[in-house]
C-alpha cells in the first residue's frame, strides 16, 4: 500500500472523505452585511427610478396601443382558427385513426425482437429513430455552449500576440470573477441546518433513484434524460445546502468538460457505426441479449448511460453558471 495517498486508493480502502486534510471541514463563515453591499443590492431599484422618459411622445404611445390591439386580435384569431382545425380532426382515441397505421403496428409487434427493449418508446427513440435523438442531445450540447458564452467568467487570457492583430479589450462593466464570488456570498443560503439535514438524507436517495431510472430505461418508464435530470437535481440540492466549497471537491469545470466529451463521443461513434452498418446492409454484430434482463437490448443501455451523464452534468452546469458564472 505504498500509494495510499492517492485519492482513489483512499476512497477504495474505505476512508470516507478522500479529501480529508486538504479541504477544511468547518462550517462556512457567517456573512455580515456591510453598507456597500446593501448599496449594491439597492442599486437595482435605484437605477430603475431614473428611466422612463417624459419626452416619449404621444405618437409612440398611440402606436404601441395600436400594435397591442392588433397583436391581441391576431392571437384570438389564431386560437379560433386552430379550434376550427381541431373540430375537423379525427376523433380522439379512435383505434382506426390514420395515426394507428403500419408504422406503430410494427413498433409494437416486433419492437421487442428487433431492438431488445421492453419499453417500446425507448426502443423507438434509440433505435428506429435514433438520428432524431442524437440531434436532440446535440441541441442540449449547443445550448450549453451558448450559456457558457454568455455567463462563464474567465480569467483574462491573452491571445498569442501576433503582429498586426487587434487585441481584445474586455468591456469595463463586465463582472470579474472576484465580484461574482462576493455577490454569490450575499445570496447564498447560510448554513441552514434544516436544509443540510434534509439534503444529507435526500441526496443519496435521489442519486440512487436517478441511477435506477437510467439503468432501467429499456425496461420501464424512464431513460437517460429523466434519470439524468433527477441526478442533476440531487447535485443542485447538495450545492444549495453545502455551498460550492464542498461540490468543487468532486465536480469542477474540467469534470464537466471531460464527462460530456466522452459521453457524446461514445454516443456519436456508436450511432455512426450503427447507421453505417444499417445503410450498407451489414450485420451490426451487437448482441441484443434476453429481453427483460438489465444487460440487454444492444446499444440502448450504454446510450442511456451516456445521455444520463450528459444531462446530469448539464443541469448542474446550468445552475452553477446562472449563480456565479463558473463551477
Amino acid at each position: 500500500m505504498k500509494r495510499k495517498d492517492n485519492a482513489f486508493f483512499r476512497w477504495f480502502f474505505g476512508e470516507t472523505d478522500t479529501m480529508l486534510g486538504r479541504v477544511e471541514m468547518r462550517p462556512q463563515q457567517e456573512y455580515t452585511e456591510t453598507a456597500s453591499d446593501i448599496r449594491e443590492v439597492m442599486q437595482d431599484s435605484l437605477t430603475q427610478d431614473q428611466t422612463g422618459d417624459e419626452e416619449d411622445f404621444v405618437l409612440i404611445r398611440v402606436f404601441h396601443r395600436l400594435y397591442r390591439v392588433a397583436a391581441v386580435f391576431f392571437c384570438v384569431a389564431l386560437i379560433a382558427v386552430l379550434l376550427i382545425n381541431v373540430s375537423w380532426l379525427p376523433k380522439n382515441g379512435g383505434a382506426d385513426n390514420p395515426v394507428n397505421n403500419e408504422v406503430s403496428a410494427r413498433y409494437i409487434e416486433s419492437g421487442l425482437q428487433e431492438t431488445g427493449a421492453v419499453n417500446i418508446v425507448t426502443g423507438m427513440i434509440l433505435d428506429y429513430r435514433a438520428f432524431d435523438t442524437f440531434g436532440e442531445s446535440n441541441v442540449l450540447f449547443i445550448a450549453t455552449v451558448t450559456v457558457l458564452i454568455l455567463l462563464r467568467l474567465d480569467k483574462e487570457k491573452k491571445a498569442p500576440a501576433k503582429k498586426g492583430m487587434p487585441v481584445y479589450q474586455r468591456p469595463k462593466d463586465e463582472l470579474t470573477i472576484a465580484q461574482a464570488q462576493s455577490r454569490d456570498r450575499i445570496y447564498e443560503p447560510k448554513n441552514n441546518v434544516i436544509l443540510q439535514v434534509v439534503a444529507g438524507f435526500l441526496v443519496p436517495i435521489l442519486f440512487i433513484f436517478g441511477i435506477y431510472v437510467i439503468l432501467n430505461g429499456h425496461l420501464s418508464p424512464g431513460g437517460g434524460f429523466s434519470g439524468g435530470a433527477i441526478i442533476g437535481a440531487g447535485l443542485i440540492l447538495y450545492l444549495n445546502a453545502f455551498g460550492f466549497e464542498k461540490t468543487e471537491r468532486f465536480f469542477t469545470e474540467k469534470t464537466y468538460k471531460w464527462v460530456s466529451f466522452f459521453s457524446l463521443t461514445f454516443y456519436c461513434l456508436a450511432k455512426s457505426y450503427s447507421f453505417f452498418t444499417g445503410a450498407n446492409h451489414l450485420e451490426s454484430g451487437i448482441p441484443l441479449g434476453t429481453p427483460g434482463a438489465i444487460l440487454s437490448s444492444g446499444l440502448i443501455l450504454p446510450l442511456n448511460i451516456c445521455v444520463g451523464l450528459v444531462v446530469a452534468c448539464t443541469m448542474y452546469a446550468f445552475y452553477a453558471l446562472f449563480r456565479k458564472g463558473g463551477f
Partner: protein
Amino acid sequence: MPFVQNFPFFSIILSMFSGIVSAVLPARAAKWVNGVLIGTVGVLSAILLVYLMGTKEAFVYWMGHFPAPWGNEIRAGALEAGMALFFCVILLLSMLGGQKKLVGEVEYSKHNLYYILVDLLLSSLLALVYTNDLFTAYVFVEINTIAACGLILIRQNGRTIEAAVRYMIMSLLGSGLFLLGLCTLYDLTGHLLMSNIREAVAQLSRQQAYTVPLLTTIGLISAGLAIKSALFPFHTWLPDAYGYSTVSSAAILSSLVSKGYIFLLIKIFYRVIGFEIIGESKVINVLFVFGLMGMVFGSLSAIRENDIRRMIAYSSVAQIGYIYMGLGLGTQIGIVASVFHILSHAATKSLLFISAIGLTDVSGGSRKFLDLTGAGYRNKLAGVAFTVGSLSMVGVPMFSGFVSKLLFMEASLGHAIKMFPALLVLALSTILNAIYFMKTVIRLYVPDKRPDFGQITMKDEKLYAATLICFIALNVTLGMFSQPIVNWIRTGLSVFG
C-alpha cells in the same frame, strides 16, 4: 451500394463530431479543425455532386437498420449536393474574411466555443438539406436557431444581446407554429417520413377528406418557417442582429441561416405536401403578398438608414422578399428563380458584409456614411468589392443579381394574374435598390483626403484580400455562367419531389 452514397451521412456526422471534439481543444486547434472540416465537407459534396449529375437520380440512405416507413432516412439528389457544396464555400469564405475581426471582438478563451457553434451550424444546415424526415428537420431547425443565436451574441455588448433576445422570441414563435403544424400533419397521415406523408396527403386530397386541417397545416408550417427566415413583418430583430454582431456571424447569418429555412420550406412544398396541392392552396398567395411588401418596405427602410451595416441588413429583408415572391408564384420556374436567388443573394450579401468591414476600418471604425466618404480610395480592394456587390444587388449585367432578376421576370410573365403586381414591384424595388446602393458607392468614391484615417493595402492583409477576390470571382461566375447553374437547378428539382 456505391461507397460515394455514404458521403451525405459522413458530412453530417463529421461536422457534429468536430463540434463535440472542439469542446476540449484549445482555440487554435479548434480553428484548424473547423477549417479542415469545412474543406472536407466541401470536397465530399463536390464528389457527390459529380456522381449525382452523372446518374441523374436521387438516392435514399437509411439511418439505421430499418426500411422506409419505420426507420429514419436521408435523401440526396443533385440539388441537395450542390446546395451543400455552395453552403460550404460561403461558410469558408465568411470565416476567413472575418478572422481578424474575431480576434479583436471576442474574448480569447471563448474562441473555441465560437468554432463549436460554426461546426454545429454546418451540421444542422447539412441535415436540413439532406433529411427526408419531418421531425428530424424540426430538431435540426432548433439546432440552427440556437447556433445562430450564439453567433449573434458571441460579441457581447448590449445591442447584440438585445438583438439575440428578440431573435429568439421570433424564432420560438415560429418553431411553435411549425411544431404544431407538424403534429397535425402527423395526425392526418400517420407518417413522419416526407415521401410517405406525400403519398398519404395525395390520397387524402383525392378523397376530399380533411380539407380544413390540411389547409391549416400548410399555413402553420409556412408561417412558422417564414417567421424564422425573417419575412417582412417579422424582421424587427434583423438589423440589430446583423448590424452589430461580429462580421463573420453577420455574413453567415444573412447568407446561410435564413436560406436553410427557405430550402426546408421548398423541400416541404415538393416532398411533403406535393407541388400540385400547394399550387391550389391559398397559402402561397399570402406568401406572395408578404414577399412583395418585403421588397418595397425593406428597401425603404434601407434608404432611411445612416449606418452602412444596418443598411445592408435591411437590404436582406428586401432580398428575402424576392425569394418568397418567387415561391408565391407557385410555378416550377418561379421556384428555379428562387433557388437561384438563394445562391446569388448568399454570395453577394456575404461579400457586402465582409467588404464593409474593410471600409469601416479605414474610417476610424465609424459606420456612418459621413465618415465613410472617400473610403474607396483608402482601402482600394474593399471599395472595388463593395462596388461589385452593389452592382450585383441592383442587377447590372455580368453579375449574379442580374440573372436572378431576369429569372424572376421570366417567371412572373408565366402567371396571368400575379404577372402585373410582380413586374411592377420588381421594377420599383430595383429603382429603390439602385438609390441606396449607388448612393453608398458614390459616397465611397467622393474624393476626401482625410489624413487622420490610415490606408490599408492588399499587402497588409493578404488573407482578407484573397477572400474578397474569391468572393468577386464567385459573384462574376454566377453572373456569367448562369446557364449551367440554371440547368443544374432544373435537373435537381426534377428529382427533388
